[in-house]
């Protein structure tokens, strides 16, 4: 059970979207994806819905955007991702 970290903050479109979706699709059971971007990934969330992925968004005052992504069929990964998101908020 592990966090898969993906920092796309220095990539130009469409790389952040493509890499995030690819990583979300290849998550192993128990794993969740932690994506870091420099801006709001406006096209991402509809695509995650289509792929039956859950997600939590966190925006920092600096503008940095963190997204935690898991498969909706994987409750353990969801729990881990929620805990990680809470820790980030704290």
């Amino acid at each position, binding site marked *: 059970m592990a966090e898969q970290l993906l920092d796309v903050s220095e*990539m130009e*479109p*469409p790389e952040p979207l*493509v890499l995030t*979706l690819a990583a979300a699709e290849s998550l192993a059971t128990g794993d969740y994806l932690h994506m870091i971007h420099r801006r709001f990934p406006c096209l991402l969330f509809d695509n995650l819905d289509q792929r039956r992925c859950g997600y939590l968004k966190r925006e920092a005052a600096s503008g940095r955007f963190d997204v935690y992504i898991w498969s909706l069929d994987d409750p353990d990964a969801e729990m881990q991702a929620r805990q990680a998101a809470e820790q980030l908020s704290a």
Partner: protein
Amino acid sequence: MNYTALSLAQTPPLSVPLRFFITAPLFTIAAGLIALWFGPELFESRWSYPLLAATHAITLGFLGSVMIGALQQLLPVLAGTPLPKPVWLSATIHLLLTVGVLLLMAGWLLAEFALFEFAIWLLAAALLPLVLLLIVTLFRSESKHPSILTMIFAVIGLAVTAVLGLDLLAGYTWSEWVLNRGLTDIHLGWGLVGWLAVLVAGVAYQVVPMFQITPDYPKLMMRGYAPMLLGLLLLWTLLQADWITWLIALMLAVFAIVTLRLQHQRRRRIADVTLDFWRLAMGSLLLALLLWLLAPHLHLTPIAPVVVLIAGFAVSAVNGMLYKIVPFLIWLHLNNRVQALGSWQGKIPNMKQIIPERQARWQFRLQLAALIVLFGALLVPEWLLRPAALLWIASAAWLGWNLLAALYLFRRIVSDAQDVG
């Protein structure tokens, strides 16, 4: 990598913007051919008919086409408000605009003002309903991004430019219509500042941070730049005072310096031809302002700042924009089309493969050379104008070829996918 269909639900069909982009370089080639044919005569007077034909080939034929095509693409995505019947609308506007600009150019080149009778109606039918539609669509937008506000101002700038231009054209065409040449400077001011400079700013607020990985433009600037610039332009139209022109020039310089500074702060330090086009554009904007300041002391032709502004600033910025927007759109539509066909397992090229950096880089070098020689031709037109025209034609043709090759790649991959599917 499994590319599944991306949901850019508001994206119009690829043909909507691309028909404008593909034909646009033909107009810059035409401007170069006019310069090649007429030579130094082109710069003899701001009223010379070949110069008016070449100028409108670039401003309406190239810049107008690309920006109108881009607006029809950007608006639905940025503002979340689709235009009605996008394919029909874009095909109709493209036809009216293209034939209208050709007739306008032919009217000047042949000194046959009867052709303007048709050009007026075609250009009015292409531009005025589109302007109204764009303004209504933008106002309805739920997005509050400053780009949207800036685009509203740019479209207002286009409307004023178009109305003044049509009025001037009517003066050439119908004897009972008064030709008020005093409006020419106002038409030029609204076209260059109210339409081109404001729209480039609106596009830059999105494109520069997103594709060039820079910090955002300052919020105050994004909110205030366009309304202040158009407010000053309105004041200048009414008062024609020098201090207002100075303030407008200062604001344009601030935009160029802020853009160059943001690009200097970019996080990813790899070569990018779009960035070079934008730097060339901003450098040209500053040079145009400098020439405007120094023109009276340098014995330069009074058209020099305008030539640098149009050929250096506007054409370079739009050229650079095309190298991001066209590969991105082709990649996006390719992705959606081949996935819609089902089980096809072929590889979708990435953006750098759709228009290879090397191809774009060679065109940038040609464009840079064309501009250097063109700027020299402002001093010694009898020596340098025709070489500048040749380089300009080669650069425009190379851009056109790069865009066509990208379209061919799109069609080939879709066709292969259909064969396999």
